């Protein structure tokens, strides 16, 4: 066992895969000698050298174009887009080229590539460096979408993403970077499309992603004090989506809540809630309830950002009120 921070786990996970596959390369801005602006790639240049850990200009289209061209011609690639907000400047290559080319060519090309990017708020960076854009990626056929919430899952899901033959968007959460946890020794390899029940409960199901997972867990502790037993599911992978774990949980608890950092419209929870509504309607004792950031650009001031993004307190109150109104 070793204790690693989330940011250290990123480098640990990449190193695990680069040792396994000598063909694997990585490129991005400031990732080599500088170790990444979030210090998620520290030490990789020393072990793997500048041919495999490549610094690039501020040219997101050139970065992802290079990743696409290399991966479709036999070289697996990890590309870093520094902030997930910056995906907007290279979205053509993500959404129109990487995602669609396999289908458009009748399966002639494959893209074994991972696009890592720092996602989410809490760092007071304002509206262009704080967004949760997992729903942008989730809605594009052809992509896979992953967002780990713990250091251990960073390593396991990184391995799964690198080994997956399809393009994976890998969201690393900025506000989880400093968190530490014990990581088992040896190789860790997870499977995409497997959600995790991180707390068992019997009264309500709360599904959450990334930074919202620890907040949902904190809310669940407080709900327990009110004799409300909350089951918390870490979604982990939006595409493929483990609906079975969610539907099984709802069959047991009969209430369903999502906690989403993305702004409300078309957030991932809307899709998941619609699946629960369609397929578990007769299991439910109340409406599906979504707890989200409002439909606003994220503000910079600490007080405003904290009001915008779902807090443990807001999750607790929303769930408690909803259960109360039902029983009362």
């Amino acid at each position, binding site marked *: 066992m070793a204790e690693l921070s989330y940011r250290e786990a990123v480098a640990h996970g990449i190193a695990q895969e680069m040792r396994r596959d000598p*063909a694997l*390369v990585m490129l991005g801005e400031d990732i080599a000698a500088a170790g990444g602006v979030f210090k998620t790639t520290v030490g990789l240049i020393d072990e793997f050298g500048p*041919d495999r850990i490549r610094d*690039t*200009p501020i*040219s997101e*289209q*050139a970065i*992802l*174009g*290079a*990743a*696409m*061209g*290399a*991966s*479709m*011609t*036999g*070289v697996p*690639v990890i590309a870093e887009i520094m902030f997930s907000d910056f995906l907007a400047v290279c979205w*053509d*290559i993500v959404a*129109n*080229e990487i995602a669609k*080319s*396999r*289908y*458009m*060519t*009748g*399966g*002639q*090309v*494959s893209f074994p590539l991972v696009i890592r990017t720092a996602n989410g708020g809490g760092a007071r960076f304002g509206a262009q460096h704080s967004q949760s854009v997992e729903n942008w990626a989730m809605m594009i*056929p*052809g992509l*896979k979408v992953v967002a780990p919430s713990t250091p251990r899952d960073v390593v396991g899901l990184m391995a799964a993403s690198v080994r*997956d*033959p*399809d393009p994976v968007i890998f969201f690393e959460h900025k506000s989880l970077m400093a968190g530490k946890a014990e990581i088992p020794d040896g190789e860790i390899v997870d499977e995409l*499309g497997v959600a995790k029940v991180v707390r068992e409960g019997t009264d309500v199901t709360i599904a959450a992603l990334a930074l919202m997972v620890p907040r949902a867990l904190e809310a669940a502790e407080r709900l327990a004090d009110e004799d409300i037993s909350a089951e918390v599911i870490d979604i982990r992978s939006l*595409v*493929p*989506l*483990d*609906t*079975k774990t969610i539907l099984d949980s709802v069959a047991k608890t009969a209430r369903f809540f999502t906690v989403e950092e993305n702004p409300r419209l078309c957030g991932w929870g809307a899709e998941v809630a619609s*699946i629960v509504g369609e397929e578990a309607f007769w299991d439910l004792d109340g409406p599906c309830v979504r707890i989200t950031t409002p439909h606003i650009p994220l503000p910079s001031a600490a007080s405003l950002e904290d009001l915008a993004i779902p807090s443990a307190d807001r999750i607790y109150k929303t769930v408690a009120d909803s259960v109360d109104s039902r029983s009362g």
Partner: protein
Amino acid sequence: MPTSPGDGQRAVLYDYALREPRLPQPVDWSLSEADIDIDTRIGMYRKLQELRQFEKRAYDLFMQNLVKGTSHLSLGMEAVATGFALAMRPDDYTFATYRGHAHSLARGMEMGPAMAELLGRENGILGGKGGSMHLTDVSKGMMGSYAIIGAHLCIANGAAWSAQMRGTDQVAVAFFGDGTTNIGAFHEALNMAVIWNLPVVFACENNLYMEYTPIDLITAVENPAADRAPAYGLESILIDGNDPDHVYLTAKKAIDKARSGQGPSLIEAVTYRSGGHSRADPGKYRPVEEVEAWADRDPIPMYHDRLLSLGTPEGRLSAIEREVAAAVDDATEYAKAGREPGEATLLTEVYADGGSAWRN
């Protein structure tokens, strides 16, 4: 508000009626003396005929409403695809735009599956999922036709980078039009290719029009690619894109340079689109004398005459024309005989497992 003397001038430039026609420059015949063996030249003539006759047939099938959607033909521009294709190794990579029929055939895509794809048939090269704007045949090094211009220059860099890492000596060639030189990805790709010394060749087919608009009216420099090359430390290369020999020799030099580890090149080949931008465009915005002058510089009759002057018997050339015509007829029949694709393939090949499942 700042003013500049250029403001008034610019307003005049946007008036199409006052615009001078862009006439072709005289051919540099000294190049025809260069050492290109007769087999290569005959091969180029056959390829020119294939591209021309295929595109004309594609146009006819549109008029018969057998081809739906849109298409962007390379009629008049065949010398660029031809000259490059003959200079490339079979394992080199081609990346093209939506105007990609010629580049696909030039690399060896079979005419039947190509035509069937235009007709949206099951026996199309892409099973009907891509269509005219996305022709791809990885088995021939044709790595795709990219319908949103710019990205594929960056993607070609990736293929070149991969070849560099794998040590295969392969070269990637990205073809694009003059319009592409004004999108950001062009500049990102050029810069990265130079700093990484990538084995890639950027081939700009300057057909003088960005879709419907004369390129000179919307570009800061006269030669949209060649004049920008020095900004990336590259040689400024401007060639006659209607002369297959000129294209072939220039392409060979640039490809050899890339293959030997000496980095990228940017080539601007000036040519002319004899038709409109796409199926929907009759191209009426072009001065008549300009269209006529370029028709006199049609690469195919010019090359035909050159081969005759070099001693090739007329019969050999007419035999090629007949063989190609028969091949285009066969391709048309193959395409028409294909079934329309159905539900069996609608949901396949979204993911590498062959399907489109996104949940359990």
